[in-house]
């Protein structure tokens, strides 16, 4: 799980163009939206695409992302349980 979290942080930084950031700057349990990284709805779409490209997970309903993207940890847990690659 820790390995997946680390990998996921790298992928988030790349997908969302956080050029000056390192994985250490992202708190695994901090909220991704609102506070914390302060992501918005465009980032949510990018994260949905990230899960599709990297882990073969397709979300049909963008609203489903809300629960999954609470933090890096909740996202990693969802990926662990649902990945197809």
């Amino acid at each position, binding site marked *: 799980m820790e390995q997946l979290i680390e990998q996921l942080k790298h992928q988030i930084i790349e997908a969302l163009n956080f050029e000056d950031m390192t994985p250490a700057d992202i708190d695994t349990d901090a909220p991704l939206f609102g506070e914390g990284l302060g992501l918005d*709805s*465009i980032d949510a779409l990018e994260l*949905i*695409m990230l899960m599709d*490209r990297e882990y073969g997970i397709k979300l049909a309903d963008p609203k489903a992302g809300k629960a999954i993207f609470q933090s890096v940890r909740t996202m990693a847990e969802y990926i662990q349980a649902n990945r197809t690659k």
Partner: protein
Amino acid sequence: MRIAITGIGAISAIGRNCAETLQSILNEQSGIGAMRVLGSVHTELPVGEVPFSDAELKQMAGVPVNEPMPRTALLGLLAAREALQESGIRNQESGFAFISGTTVGGMDLTEQHWHDYASGQATECIALHEADASTQAIAQHLSPITYHLSPITATPSTACSSALNAIMLGANMLRTGQAKAVLAGGAESLSKFHLNGFNTLMILDHVPCRPFDATRAGLNLGEGAGYLLLEREEDALARGAVILGYISGYANTCDAYHQTASSENGEGAYRAMKGALEMAGLKPSDIDYVNAHGTATPNNDLSESAALTRLFGASMPAVSSTKAFTGHTTSASGGLEAAICVMALQHGFVPANLNWTETAEGLIQPVVHTEHRALRHVLCNAFGFGGNESALVISASGSELSEADLRHRTPAVAVETMDDETMGRYVSGAEARRMTLQTRRIVAAARQVMEQSGIAQPDAIVCATQWGCMAQSMKFLQEMIDNNEQQLKPTPFIQSTHNTIASQIAILTGNHGYNITYAQRPDALDCALNDIETQMSLGYIRSALLLRFDEEVEAWDRVLALTSERIHPCASASMYIKDQQQ
């Protein structure tokens, strides 16, 4: 003076002309269905296609089948010619203007010939890529009717509100004596590019759309064109023309909220509708029908409902979205729906909002079936990406609008170049996360100009571009072609529209004022300056931020190298202030 409408033209999934369009609406017959012409892999998505191939459209339009022409221009030509012919206008030697909004332009040809270009084939299509090439192609084919080999042309490109902005500019040109007759509206064909783009935003419904319904799940894309022929009332009467209606008020505002989403309280939409009513000198209760933007995305319909409720309160007029008939025809929608509003006035009916069954909290309740009754004033909305919101009032009897002489101005403050250090001071790395380098430069230049001129909130933000946001456009296009329309990232699409720069600056500075982008080669700057001068002369604005934007991108430079065209990069900003002349 009063601005008369003396001709309308329309083409979409529900008809090749106004007569067919009217018949489909009165019969409540939708044009949305399975994809037949576009050729995208996403056949699961219903669309509002004009059910003819390019070759068939060429035949209908009298264009030689071997003449390369974007589908946008073919649709535009058919509707523009209809409006001109219906108006009976001929030989406008003293000033004919053709103002046509589009965003997609010739993207369809670029998609089809991308691999041809790599091997030096089909190079005659390259210069047709950009938005204004469609405007020029239509104007050229209209010349046998107008006897005008070089009409004044302009191509507003504010995504889905482009055509309404074209109509507004046209009206302002009549009011300042720049033209005697204006044909204004917009055209847009379907393209794989924007079908895939909207798909990455997850706002396309997989079944026919249901505007304002509780179960709505997104829009269906459509295609088409719509134009109005505008003249001064006295000119129309003098030549014995039939007046179909009047343009009595209009406004363009910016929601200044988000690149793709509308604000919860519908601030920009509210301001646009309120501004249009104020210009027309009307009370909310004077409006008998609102042709809503009503795309059927969860966000638009809720936000537009909030704006409508703020403006009309308990006395809500009849409201419907006609997008369940035509699909969302994006940049053409304002022109097509304005033409539908003129039909509604002429024939006395309120169009149905198809597919509506169930309401939910916060949503207005639309008119479900055609209602036959006389209408005095109708309001037509068109809202675009970046929060470019426009509203137009069309009336059975016109309002008196002011006139003015055009006055020329020079900028008070200008920033022509931007070095990296200064740029870093004005735009932080976090803010620039989604920007290309050139975008970051122009945002920095805009902020520096606002600071130096002491005008933090200019009344207008006007952008001139020849090619638009090419870096992100080409990134999305290449990925789409390479990945066979699968697994595409949304951000390049969101940043690909021409109006990205002007709307982004409005969002970053909270500016709700007039906001527009002109796409034109080689004279986008002339179009933008002319609009600023027109609006200052009419007294609508006292200050305007003018932006000039173009960026190089390797993938397109390689293609352009096959032609004599080049992109000349620029990212400059200047502030125009009324009564400050040199």
